[in-house]
């Protein structure tokens, strides 16, 4: 499916938050780039959450760049989902994917 992805971002760089950017990329799939201020042991868990959110939206052909400042799991979800909604230009919420 050809998706029109608008470059988008959500969140802040403040402590306990997450700054996420979504950029379209030519190749298919979803790539995740993560920088975390907390220990690397969380990196896999964060990436997993990010990817789950993206998959629930059926995302394809985007890179997701994440700066984590020690965000709780639900904050990660909220920020990534906001960026995804913005990237797809969606205003109506589809609660089944949140």
């Amino acid at each position: 499916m050809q998706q029109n992805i608008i470059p988008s971002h959500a969140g802040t760089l403040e402590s306990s938050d997450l700054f996420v950017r979504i950029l379209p990329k030519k190749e298919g799939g979803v790539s995740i780039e993560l920088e975390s201020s907390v220990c690397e042991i969380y990196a896999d868990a964060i990436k997993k959450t990010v990817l789950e959110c993206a998959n629930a939206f059926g995302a394809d052909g985007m890179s997701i760049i994440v700066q984590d400042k020690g965000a709780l799991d639900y904050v990660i979800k909220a920020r990534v989902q906001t960026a995804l909604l913005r990237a797809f230009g969606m205003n109506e919420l589809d609660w089944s994917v949140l």
Partner: protein
Amino acid sequence: MIQQKLRRSMLFVPGSNVSMVCNAFIYQPDTVMFDLEDSVALSEKDSARLLVYHALQHFTYKDIETAVRVNPLNTPFGILDLEAAIRAGADIIRLPKTDSVDDVLEMEQEIADIENRIGRQKKTMMLAAIESALGVVNAVDIARSSKRLMGIALGAEDFVRDLRTQRTKAGSELMAARNQILLAARAAKISAFDSVFSDVKDKEGFVYEVNYIKGLGFDGKSLINPNQIPWLHKAFEPSIEDITWAQEVLEAAKDSKIRGLGVVSIDGKMVDAPIIARARWIVDLAKASGVLGEEV
């Protein structure tokens, strides 16, 4: 009628402020009120909505009463905010800028529609914020307009602007509104909440105002800074004399019930239902303030 629990402190949490959203429960206010309205910039309405939506479902907010101040229904955000809050299980919806009964009924209808659509069993309560001269004039009707209303609250910042004046420490500009809102709430047997006190550094002024509104009869107050919570709870702490009196009343009531007596009396004076309710409230307050153990 809605069960009246203790609501002294209602902590405002800007929905766009992550650290406040994540940590508000730590300060143990009686109610956490996530704000999606005035404290959230237009560009962050969507992100704040989702953040609050997820926070409400987090276990840290399972044991604390939660309210959400949604954007007015005539904005593009209102209905989305409402659905997010109800789906996430908020206990109370705070209506912004309530001017008339119609505002309450419109919101009530939207809430009912959403509840039906998603199959939510527990009825969402409403708290109407009165922030205009028109709202104050209509307060009596507003307070009685819906079974879902658990209280009405004064929003002083917008109100004084509507009156073409500003807030003062003495608070004479709010006198009429406070009295009216309190009377309306009591007549409708719901709670009354006072407005925020903005100068977070002025403890003395804050405590003065709390004692003043407590004296008027308000149930509690909205707060913008967690530091104000212990000050407020302390001010609401009942005196030893009050607690002793309340405990004796409750003991007497229990006693007469066991003995099958229709009338309760202490020291030869008759004690009726409102007095017993008042005594129960004082004991609840004492427990919440930590001056009375839970076993009592």
